[in-house]
């Protein structure tokens, strides 16, 4: 045990550099996937046929391709058509787009759970689509979408490890690099696993807390 702690002290500063990038990738991917997912959900809700087709088609395609392949596509194929991205940019954009499909489904479920009668009542007092969205649908849909949204955020945190495959030196990649030079797989990957757990547990508790608070109101 003391051996583990002593070795941990050596590796942790290096792993923390990876944690920083893991958090950067997670944070920006969450923001991007939330914004894009909201756009897809609103397009689906709009009932305007071309918008619905575009968003449904996009979601179907994205959900049918492994995220790791999407990352390779953005990082390795895009430069061939003249779009050069750094590994970090490609990772964030790839994860953000991939997860926007899942976020859209979270939001769509929230939006569709709202009783149609209220929406008609809102129209009947002269509300525009935007106002109905903002004042009637969103406040209620957020409560419904929050638990699955929280789970998606936790999944993005864990799947940020996928960007290690396109050379972003986040936590998993950093672990691999140290392990390759020290052969101390046991200590390093135990530490990596514990760090991911330490990062995701607060999110799990926060989600559960918000879920309880919202279900009371």
């Amino acid at each position, binding site marked *: 045990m003391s051996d583990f702690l002593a070795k941990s002290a050596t590796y942790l500063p290096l792993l923390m550099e990876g944690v920083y990038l893991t958090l950067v990738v997670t944070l920006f991917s969450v923001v991007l996937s939330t914004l894009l997912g909201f756009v897809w959900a609103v397009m689906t809700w709009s009932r305007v046929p071309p918008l619905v087709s575009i968003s449904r088609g996009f979601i179907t395609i994205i959900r049918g391709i492994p995220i790791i392949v999407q990352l390779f596509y953005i990082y390795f194929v895009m430069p061939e058509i003249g779009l050069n991205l750094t590994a970090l940019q490609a990772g964030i954009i790839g994860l953000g787009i991939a997860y926007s499909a899942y976020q859209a489904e979270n939001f769509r479920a929230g939006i569709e759970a709202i*009783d149609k009668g209220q929406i008609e*009542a809102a*129209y*009947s*007092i002269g*509300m525009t689509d935007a106002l109905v969205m903002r*004042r009637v649908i969103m406040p209620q849909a957020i409560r419904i979408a929050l638990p699955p949204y929280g789970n998606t955020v936790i999944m993005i945190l864990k799947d940020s490890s996928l960007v290690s495959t396109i050379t972003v030196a986040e936590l998993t990649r950093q672990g691999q690099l140290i392990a390759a030079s020290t052969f101390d797989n046991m200590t390093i990957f135990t530490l990596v696993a514990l760090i991911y757990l330490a990062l995701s547990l607060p999110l799990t508790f926060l989600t559960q807390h918000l879920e309880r608070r919202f279900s009371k*109101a």
Partner: protein
Amino acid sequence: MISVRNIHKSFGAQEVIRGVNFEIARGEVVCIIGPSGSGKSTILRCINGLETYDRGEILVDGQKVDPKARSIIGVRTQVSMVFQRFNLFPHRTALENVMEGPVYVKGVPRAQARREAEALLEKVGLSAKFDSYPAQLSGGQQQRVAIARALAMQPKAILFDEPTSALDPELVGEVLEVMRDVAAEGMTMAVVTHEMSFARAVADRVLFLESGTILEEGPPEQLLRHPSHPRTQDFLHRVINPMD
């Protein structure tokens, strides 16, 4: 005030409204009765653009009702609606439900909207329920909040779509009383209802609708007591004596 001119509407192959014509004058209370599926609610929903119509024309205060045009917002701020299932916003209190339209659609300052909403809720007998959420109110109370919400828009007319059909029988009276008070103040009203006693006491005119057409219309005394059309006689007989 409201002109419905030769309206036709189909849901798929089913033509539910087949050439309906009527006018509602300012201050008039018109009750629309008829068997379910006759198109009563659909006509009401066409008037404020919640439903599209295929042919014909609806005018509100001279303005054409076109559900696809931006002008529909203007129509809806002048013609409020009260629904069978109340349709209050469940995440807002009674007071907030009433304030929602004035504040967010008409841009009335919050403090003023609040005073007006309080006055309206007092008027419908809910001065003790300002801060209650819909789930904490009975059906009758919810419907009275919905009527206050409709009145808060200061509309020129209110459409009532079977406002008491979802209520327990002992709660029907309190809602009809509020509606009668609103009518007495000169509000233009179109009421789809099965409450013949309300129609008799409050309506200026009654329309009998069946299979998407108006079979008969007239003052309540005449239409409800001495209907001329055999279908109207049959319908009224079944509504008044359901066990026969």
